[in-house]
């Protein structure tokens, strides 16, 4: 296997391993916690490195994971005092721990390949150089094995505890009543997130790890209202951005982790603009349609209220409802398209369908009962809430 392919494979495995816990972090509104963990595990990593002198040692991963969980505990303890809010607590805890790590590196690890740059940005390009030897045989890059193992554990846990994760994320109270302790689920998720961050750290660094956790999930969230699909989409976005980022770095001769993060941002931007329901363009289109439909309804109600011909003349409508010509034309066309009105000799008349629609809409406005307008939701944005 060539170094290029190995790098892409490592990037893809890291992306998947990060995307899965990322979905739950985003849904729990805990995105910032992953940022905190990714920085504050540094002292754990440095301590572990000083003890084991191996960046991929299980001891180092364990120590760093413990530091990650300690971060969460500290944040919650500070928050519980009620003196500061969660974001402030996060802002207090992780720089403190991170700076301890920075000092430890400066004091002790100057002579080894562990520097602050590598910690922040990772060294994916060097990952293939660190090989795993079993009985003298080279079986591939070490970080691929480490991340692959973490990914397998993550997937195993996801399959085993999917329903527990779902219910405790959606409704912690119910989860507790059903016997699935939200505290256990919370710290389980925090531990797995910490392990993932530690494992991915060496490859992609503290900054990109956050992006790989949060951006794919945030992107998927815009596209689906199904948790399983959200997980799958996150994985797809993560892998796509990771591989595309690698090639972008290759073409531009730039940092791999920087390019991957850029791709993640680009993917999010595209979805943010073009997502069919929640995308900005769709929302703008919907708002415009709703404006027209409100006008249509006003117009139909006016017709409904006035049987006299003078009130139903096209020109009169312009003056009466006080609209500009363009708007009147749009509304008239929409009403005609839906067979709600007929126009003869410039006199507008409600059709049977138009009358029924108006009555239903009126009833809805008066009673605010949603059932009345269920069938109308398919045709009209206005009633989709």
């Amino acid at each position, binding site marked *: 296997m060539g170094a290029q392919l190995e790098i892409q494979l490592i990037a893809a495995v890291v992306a998947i391993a990060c995307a899965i816990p990322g979905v739950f972090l985003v849904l729990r509104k805990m995105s910032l916690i992953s940022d905190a963990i990714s920085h504050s595990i540094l002292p754990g990593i440095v301590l572990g490195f000083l003890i084991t002198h191996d960046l991929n040692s299980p001891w180092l991963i364990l120590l760093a994971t413990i530091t990650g969980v300690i971060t969460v505990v500290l944040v919650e303890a500070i928050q519980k005092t009620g003196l500061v809010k969660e974001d402030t607590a996060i802002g207090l805890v992780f720089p403190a721990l991170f700076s301890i790590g920075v000092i430890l590196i400066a004091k002790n690890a100057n002579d080894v390949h562990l520097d602050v740059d590598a910690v922040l940005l990772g060294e994916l390009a060097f990952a293939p150089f660190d090989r795993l030897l079993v009985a003298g045989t080279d079986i591939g890059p070490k970080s691929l094995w480490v991340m692959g193992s973490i990914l397998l554990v993550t997937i195993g846990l996801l399959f085993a505890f999917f329903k527990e994760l779902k219910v405790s994320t959606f409704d912690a109270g119910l989860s507790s009543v059903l*016997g699935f302790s939200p505290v256990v689920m919370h710290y389980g998720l925090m531990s797995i997130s910490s392990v993932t961050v530690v494992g991915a750290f060496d490859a992609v660094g503290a900054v990109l790890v956050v992006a790989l956790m949060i951006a794919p999930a945030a992107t998927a969230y815009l596209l689906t209202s*199904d948790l399983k699909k959200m997980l799958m989409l996150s994985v797809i976005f993560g892998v796509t951005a990771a591989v595309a980022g690698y090639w972008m770095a290759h073409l531009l001769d730039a940092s791999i982790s920087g390019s991957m993060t850029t791709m993640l941002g680009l993917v999010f931007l595209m979805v943010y603009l073009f997502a069919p329901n929640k995308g900005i363009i769709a929302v703008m289109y919907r708002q415009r349609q709703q404006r027209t439909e409100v006008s249509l309804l006003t117009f139909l109600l006016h017709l409904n209220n006035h049987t006299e011909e003078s009130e139903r003349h096209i020109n009169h409508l312009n003056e009466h409802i006080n609209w500009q010509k363009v708007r009147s034309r749009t509304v008239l066309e929409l009403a005609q398209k839906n067979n709600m009105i007929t126009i003869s000799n410039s006199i507008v008349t409600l059709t049977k369908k138009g009358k029924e629609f108006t009555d239903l809409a009126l009833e809805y406005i008066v009673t605010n009962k*949603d059932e009345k307008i269920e069938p109308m939701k398919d045709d009209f944005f206005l009633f989709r809430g």
Partner: protein
Amino acid sequence: MEGSKIAVQVDDLTVAYNYKPVLWDIDLTIPEGVLMAIVGPNGAGKSTLIKAILGIIDPIAGSVAIYNEPYEKQRKKVAYVPQKGSVDWDFPTTALDVVMMGTYGKLGWIKRPGKKEKKAALEALEKVGMLSFKGRQISQLSGGQQQRVFLARALVQDAAIYFMDEPFQGVDATTEIAIINILKELRKANKTVIVVHHDLQTVPEYFDWVTFLNVKKIATGPVKDIFNDDNLTKTYGINYKVAVNQ
């Protein structure tokens, strides 16, 4: 209710937030088969009482028994409807899926819901008149519909005791009637239903048992005996004139 079993027994329950007691030394005996309202002013600890009974919050003193056993042993006998506002309705899931969550308790850890659970969830959705919305994303439901989904989720738990935290909050009149009819059906089936309730006017009409709460327990018993001006005044601190249909 003489001679009937005791569904919930609360002894000397005290709950504090940051060392400030929000519930003081509550003793409460709830007989089986009552439809009970918990009433009291804002901050009286009504939701806290339910949460402490269900072990969602740890009390600093006191004990709770569900049919003479600690709550942990009786989980499967209890269903819970939290306040609608306590969850994020933008969560990526459907009405049916939320109702399915009610079946998770009986399944236990790891085991997944199957056909049987889905069938039960669909039946519960039908009971609350929400079957046609089963595939709807929950943020696309109106407030009343969301509350019905929560109720369906509790029904699917098929419990002996139902705890509900303000199920009538923010629902229209039709939904309120639909919900109360289902609660009355539950009582007919000898289930015990405990509801945190705000609208004092409807207490005599909806409930047969009532607990007045304001940090301390003021009174508890049959509505016809204790739902009077005296207790209302003690609970709310001002002279409450409410017409009580005796």
